[in-house]
């Protein structure tokens, strides 16, 4: 049997998982849309400070699972707990305030075309009628986080695909959410831009310790998240020592709507499941 990876060096890694209540819990969740189930009997949880990477080929139900997490979709069966509250049967009016505690980055960014970057990032703050000065200050801070301060007054149509994703991350991040949901944040981007996005995800994970659920079908992004950490002093990500992985970054894998894997990178790499092996190879 293969040995587990080396333990984490003090000062180099985020704190290991605690026994605190999980942020997200799925219990036997199933959902179907006029046909066979898209997701069937899904059970997992996301703990505090934990980053869970949801792997799987396209069309397997990853985005649906993410939308179930913050109540954008309702499951047919099972229960979903978000911040300890059962949301699977919760009415929309009660879900709205709960959703403000979770940030979500959509696959294509989903920025509002008719609003500037400033208004996009500050959308929640504008709705809450925060004073303009305060909005500007916080928007600039969020844009600085994603290194896009210069786009403050631009419209989304004048941004590149990678820049839009970064603005979407800034929008999700501006209210310091208690959970971040990333829906294929690097999908369709070139490797350099993908690395920039992954670095931002890592920065959010390691600097702010925000629990997150990240959907991707790109193994290289998932492995980078597991084998690197963000160095605040250097202002960039650095690789972890050989054989060391982030203990708070774990994997889920879907196959045809079923959760076939839930575990660490080490367990993923040594899984006997033929689909996992095929996916990795």
């Amino acid at each position, binding site marked *: 049997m293969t040995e587990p990876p080396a333990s984490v060096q003090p000062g180099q890694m985020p704190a290991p998982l605690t026994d605190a209540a999980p942020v997200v819990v799925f219990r036997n969740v199933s959902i179907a849309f006029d046909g066979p189930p898209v997701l069937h009997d899904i059970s997992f949880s996301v703990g505090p400070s934990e980053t869970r990477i949801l792997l799987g080929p396209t069309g397997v139900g990853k985005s649906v699972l993410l*939308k179930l997490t*913050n109540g*954008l979709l309702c499951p047919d069966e099972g229960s979903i707990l978000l911040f300890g509250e059962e949301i699977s049967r919760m009415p*929309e*009016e009660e879900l*709205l*305030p709960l*959703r*403000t505690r*979770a940030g*979500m980055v*959509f*696959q*294509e960014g*989903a*920025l*509002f*075309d008719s609003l500037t970057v400033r208004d996009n990032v500050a*959308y*929640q703050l504008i*709705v809450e009628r925060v004073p303009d000065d305060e909005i500007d200050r916080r928007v600039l801070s969020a844009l600085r986080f994603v290194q896009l301060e210069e786009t403050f007054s631009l419209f989304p149509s004048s941004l590149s695909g990678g820049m839009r994703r970064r603005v979407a991350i800034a*929008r999700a991040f501006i209210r310091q959410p208690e959970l971040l949901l990333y829906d294929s944040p690097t999908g369709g981007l070139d490797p350099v831009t993908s690395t920039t996005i992954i670095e931002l995800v890592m920065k959010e994970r390691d600097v702010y310790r925000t629990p997150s659920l990240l959907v991707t079908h790109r193994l290289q992004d998932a492995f980078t998240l597991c084998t690197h950490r963000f160095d605040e002093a250097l202002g960039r990500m650095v690789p972890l020592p050989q054989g060391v992985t982030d203990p708070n970054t774990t994997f889920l894998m879907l196959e045809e709507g079923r959760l076939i894997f839930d575990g660490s990178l080490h367990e993923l790499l040594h899984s006997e499941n033929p689909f996992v092996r095929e996916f990795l190879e």
Partner: protein
Amino acid sequence: MLSQLFEPGLRGGRSLLQLPPAVGVDSLRPMQAPNIQRRVKAEHWRNLMRGSPRDDCHARTSLVLDARKQLPNAGPWPRLESIDPERRQCAVVVQQQKRARPTRKTLKKLVQSFCRFRSHVISLSQPVYDAPACRVARVDLLSAPCAILSMQHPNPAARHSIQSCEPVIHMAIDPLERTAKQLVLTVQDYSLFAWRAITNLFSEPRYWPEFLVQSDIIGFGSTSIVLLSGFFTGGVLALQSAATLSQFGATAVTGQFVSITMIRELGPVLTGIMVAARNASSMASELGSMVVTEQIDAMRALGVDPMRKLVTPRIFACISMLFFLTIVADAFGILGGGAVTVFLNHQDGPQYFSKAWESLRYPDIIQGLVKPLFSGYIIASVGCFYGMRTTGGTQGVGRSTIQAVVNAAVLIILVDFLVTRVLLALFPPL
């Protein structure tokens, strides 16, 4: 008769009706089915008669085509629906359409024609894949409005393929049933949607800036088209009425005719249709684009209710603006009629305007100003409804836009009729 025909097959005895598989017939895909008959016409009889019972490699098309040939004037056609050659599905599917009575007749003839082949099993089932085994024959088919005939292949492997393949058959009644269900569902969804949009105004949060922005877009933006359409409608009314009234020497009442017609009917309806064409389409396409680019989901994820933020302000802006736009259209309609009366018909202007003014009563004005309240509500709610339920990408946006404009225009005229009926009952003409 049918039970006698098929019971031996059920008991496992000698089959009454057996057909060899079609050999050498090209593989079919569902989309090819309507055009295949010409290609196989010459050889399907030969294929039907010569095939080996063990040959299950080809889709069987001959029987259906032959059945069709047997019934040239049978009314609703039996139709090859789909055959999946990759799954080696040997089911032959005959679909009957439309009414039940011709279907029953057609089925009888089909069975009679099939009975000529006495070496293979034919089973009837409805639907094919309900049956645990295709030997099961159901004799109640003739009372059904549509039917599927499936043919069991003697080869067990092929039989298995029939049982295991997914249902690819769409019964003729399905589209009708689906359409009816869809219609009921749409009405239900629209009612809930419209009710929620209205009740949102009576609770927090309210988005007044959105209301003002939409009022500007709908009200000011539509002024020019409403003004022009009103003016020329009034002008046409004056032209037409003057030509007719001159036969009775009553051209003096042209003003009365134009003003009453414009204020009571044409002003509200034409304005409603013009605003629907401009704004229902705009709302449906704008919201539809937001749906397909996940902006609506993003809004919900940010804790903002799209119904309150996007729909409710549009509905109330449309109601209030259409009220004023109708007044503008009425005024310019009367003005257009006056211009035609003075400059083209060379009649007296003061007489036209005095008649137009004197003939008006409060019930006329009430009737003219109540209608735009309904029309405004219809335009915005239908536009937003179809926009918010857009599916299918950019093509879906186009579809939603068309549906919004068409349904809004039809509903405006329908509701105009109902409102007119009610108001005429409340305020009977003198």
